[in-house]
């Protein structure tokens, strides 16, 4: 099941529930216009959504419901209890279809007939009287399930006789055969339908005919785009297959099962036999009572003949023979041939003794008149009886539509499948996440306990058991954490979906032509991260449109297509979400940025001279920076990129900017997938412990004191042929103590990455890596720079987590 289908199912259930509630409320307050519009909107949306998928059955019913609601809303139809009933029934039907989809039933074709019935019963409310006069095909004929009665009207004589007897043989073997009359709607060509193609694709075709529904107009008067064709097909495919094939046009199709009784008289008797041969006789049969009775008798007798042909095995043979005899005697009585009954009794007697059907069959063979009852066309009753008597697979469609009715008639209180998607308040999820976080931290207490058991109480055995238990709890806790993260994951499409509109509006306002490309919308990240992303992204996109992409004329003169390209791409990269926003605009000119920054006093003259181009570009992130000549309502107020950087860094993300003047700009936001549990490395410095977020730590090295060189009063070292600046943590924290080295006179050095550059931070010693829940510092401490927050450790002590970025820039 695709995610979009899942979403549809879950939304559709909500809508159905809402619709049901609105209907109930409306029954109490039928004049509430607002409630009515609400209801209309729900039905309308649900119909629209169902159109995204191939659910013609659902769309058809919802479309009818929408029509009804529209009439009510326009005051052309009064809201009544009957109307509410039918709507509720229709919604129950839709719910049933949804359950089927949820249960993996790909096609609801079996319910096509039921859906037409529901749609008709709804439309009936709109035009109860006109309906029969309307030219809509749905109004012309009753739903297909009823139309099997029209067996009498089948133009069987159009079929070659040889073919008919072949069909009779097939029917006798119980193979399905359907006569399909397909009369496409007059305007079907305008709906993109090709009835001939539809007819050609029918499975199991045995015979076909194409006729006009009316005599042909002269070529001069003919409208080639008004469909006036009627297709007659005979197919050996199963009813389900055929119903599925014609599922989009059930109201244009009549499907008549061809039973032995329909075919047999025609096959058994030469057409010259009687006055009533051919479909022309059908009218008289239906009109006169006596021929009709004869026809029924013939059908019943025919059914008995085929019953007699069944194999004489099994314990039920005697019962079957008695049933056949009873049926035949009742038939004979009804047509006044009681004189034949004693012979029948005798035949039954010998048949029972022999345990075989032969004596009865022989007796029946001596009664040719009954068998050859002059009726070619059968009434509906005659057509159905043998089918039921032989329990051939033909009544499958009756069974299918019956099942549909039964299921569609189901009320919500009958129970049924419960929805499998839960909608949960985010607060509850957050609470659960916090609890799981606490659990993760609490489990970290066990190793401490194990250590104490061993060192303080000297019980080594117990320490080992505690550790084993810890491993189990650790695994479960990690899985729990994973699971809750999955719950909180959301695709970035939620944020992305607002951009097409935003870009369209802004570019129109600016008179620019922009093509927006969104990629990787299914990339997932924690809900908080996604939400934190929304505002920075809007800033960036506005900046791109305003400063990046040039006006069409300027682009053309620069040799670029008039239409600018803006691409927003999301991807996942080892535990982080990357969002790239790139445009093919004019890019950022480092010289202009430098000058602006100087003018605004963000950099001094010396800086202006020696700053690198990349650093100059990064100046756009400085607070109060703006290059725009005029302040527009879009950008140019000097708030923007610094806001973007702060917002991204608040959720532990980073922004990198690269630009080629004249060719475009690319901004990359790198964000953690989730921010609930932080992985930190514990370090020791000046007899205190601190945490450093693991995602900032590149590596840990032990540097011999002799390898440390001084460059311009700064400590540095050479690490893998690159100069690495070194800082001492004590010095950064303004503590007047020298960093302690180990026995080999090596300094523990943490290599961290800050704004894309490496820095070595010297500490006293490294400790373990732990998972913590980082609590931001509150109150007065909130203003203290250099710390990301604090966390509780497993032994109950407080760990201060450093923010190296702030520590460095704060100096």
């Amino acid at each position, binding site marked *: 099941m695709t995610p979009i289908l899942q979403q549809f199912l879950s939304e559709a259930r909500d809508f159905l529930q809402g619709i049901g509630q609105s209907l109930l409320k409306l029954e109490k307050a039928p004049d509430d216009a607002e409630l009515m519009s609400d209801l209309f909107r729900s039905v309308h949306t649900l119909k629209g959504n169902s159109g995204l998928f191939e659910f013609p059955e659902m769309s058809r019913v919802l479309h009818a419901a929408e029509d009804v609601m529209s009439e009510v809303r326009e005051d052309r139809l009064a809201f009544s209890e009957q109307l509410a009933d039918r709507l509720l029934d229709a919604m129950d039907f839709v719910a049933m279809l949804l359950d089927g989809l949820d249960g993996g039933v790909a096609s609801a074709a079996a319910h096509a007939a039921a859906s037409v019935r529901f749609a008709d019963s709804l439309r009936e409310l709109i035009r109860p009287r006109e309906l029969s006069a309307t030219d809509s095909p749905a109004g012309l004929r009753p739903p297909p399930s009823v139309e099997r009665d029209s067996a009498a009207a089948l133009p069987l004589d159009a079929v070659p006789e040889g073919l008919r007897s072949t069909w009779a043989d097939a029917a006798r073997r119980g193979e399905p055969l359907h006569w399909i009359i397909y009369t496409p709607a007059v305007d079907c060509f305008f709906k993109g339908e090709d*009835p001939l193609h539809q007819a050609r694709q029918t499975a199991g075709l045995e015979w076909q005919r194409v006729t*006009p529904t009316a005599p042909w107009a002269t070529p001069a008067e003919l409208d*080639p785009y008004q469909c006036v064709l009627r297709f007659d097909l005979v197919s050996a495919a199963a009813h389900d297959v055929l119903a599925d094939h014609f599922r989009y046009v059930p109201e244009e199709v009549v499907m008549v099962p061809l039973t032995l009784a329909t075919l047999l008289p025609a096959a058994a008797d030469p057409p010259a036999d009687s006055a009533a041969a051919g479909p022309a006789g059908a009218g008289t049969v239906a009109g006169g009572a006596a021929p009709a009775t004869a026809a029924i008798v013939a059908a019943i007798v025919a059914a008995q003949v085929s019953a007699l042909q069944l194999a004489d095995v099994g314990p039920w043979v005697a019962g079957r023979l008695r049933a056949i005899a009873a049926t035949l005697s009742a038939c004979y009585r009804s047509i006044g041939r009681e004189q034949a009954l004693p012979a029948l009794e005798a035949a039954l007697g010998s048949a029972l003794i022999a345990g075989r059907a032969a004596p009865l069959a022989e007796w029946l063979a001596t009664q040719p008149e009954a068998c050859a009852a002059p009726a070619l066309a059968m009434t509906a009753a005659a057509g159905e009886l043998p089918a039921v008597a032989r329990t051939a697979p033909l009544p499958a469609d009756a069974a299918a539509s019956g099942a549909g009715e039964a299921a569609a008639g189901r009320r919500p209180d009958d129970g049924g499948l419960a929805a499998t998607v839960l909608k949960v308040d985010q607060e509850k999820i957050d609470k659960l996440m916090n609890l799981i976080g606490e659990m993760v931290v609490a489990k970290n207490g066990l190793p401490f306990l194990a250590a104490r058991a061993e060192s303080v109480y000297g019980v080594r055995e117990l320490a080992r058991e505690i550790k084993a238990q810890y491993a189990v709890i650790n695994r479960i806790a990690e899985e729990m954490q994973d699971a809750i993260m999955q719950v909180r994951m959301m695709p970035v499409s939620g944020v992305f979906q607002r951009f097409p509109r935003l870009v369209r509006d802004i570019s129109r306002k600016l008179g620019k032509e922009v093509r927006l490309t969104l990629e990787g919308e299914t990339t997932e990240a924690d809900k908080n991260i996604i939400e934190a992303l929304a505002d920075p992204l809007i800033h960036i996109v506005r900046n791109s449109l305003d400063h990046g992409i040039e006006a069409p004329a300027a682009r053309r003169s620069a040799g670029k297509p008039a239409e600018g390209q803006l691409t927003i791409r999301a991807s996942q990269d080892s535990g982080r979400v990357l969002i790239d926003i790139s445009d093919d605009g004019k890019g950022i000119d480092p010289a202009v940025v430098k000058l602006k920054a100087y003018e605004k006093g963000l950099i001094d003259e010396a800086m202006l001279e020696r700053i690198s181009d990349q650093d100059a570009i990064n100046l756009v992130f400085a607070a109060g920076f703006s290059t725009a000549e005029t302040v527009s309502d879009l950008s140019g107020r000097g708030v923007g990129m610094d806001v973007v950087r702060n917002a991204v860094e608040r959720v532990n993300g980073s922004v990198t900017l690269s630009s080629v003047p004249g060719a475009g700009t690319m901004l990359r936001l790198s964000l953690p997938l989730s921010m609930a549990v932080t992985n930190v490395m514990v370090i020791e410095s000046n007899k205190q412990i601190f945490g450093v977020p693991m995602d900032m730590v590149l590596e840990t090295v032990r540097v011999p004191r002799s390898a440390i060189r001084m460059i311009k009063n700064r400590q540095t070292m050479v690490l893998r042929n690159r100069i690495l600046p070194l800082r001492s943590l004590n010095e950064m924290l303004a503590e007047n103590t020298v960093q302690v080295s180990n026995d080999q006179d090596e300094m523990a050095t943490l290599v961290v990455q800050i704004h894309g550059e490496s820095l070595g931070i010297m500490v006293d010693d490294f400790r373990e890596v732990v998972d913590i829940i980082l609590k931001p510092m509150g109150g007065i401490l909130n203003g203290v720079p250099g710390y990301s927050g604090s966390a509780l450790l497993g032994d109950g002590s407080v760990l201060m987590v450093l923010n190296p970025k702030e520590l460095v820039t704060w100096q």
Partner: protein
Amino acid sequence: MAMTYKRNIAHFTDAVGVEEAEGLLAWLQKHPQAKLNLSVCSHLHAAVLQVLMAARLKVAVWPVDAGLSMWLKAALG
């Protein structure tokens, strides 16, 4: 081109779409004695079919495609 007209023979090629119906009808009115060559036709739209049925035309060459040929013979034959 799904349809080409040569003197009084209309040639049908591959699948003939709904858009050809009007042109065919106009052409048939000018050429009431027209013949049809359907040999390389694989499908024709129902709208085209009904034009052919209404005009009661002679089919000079039936389609090679057996399925289509069967249908056309049922409709035009």
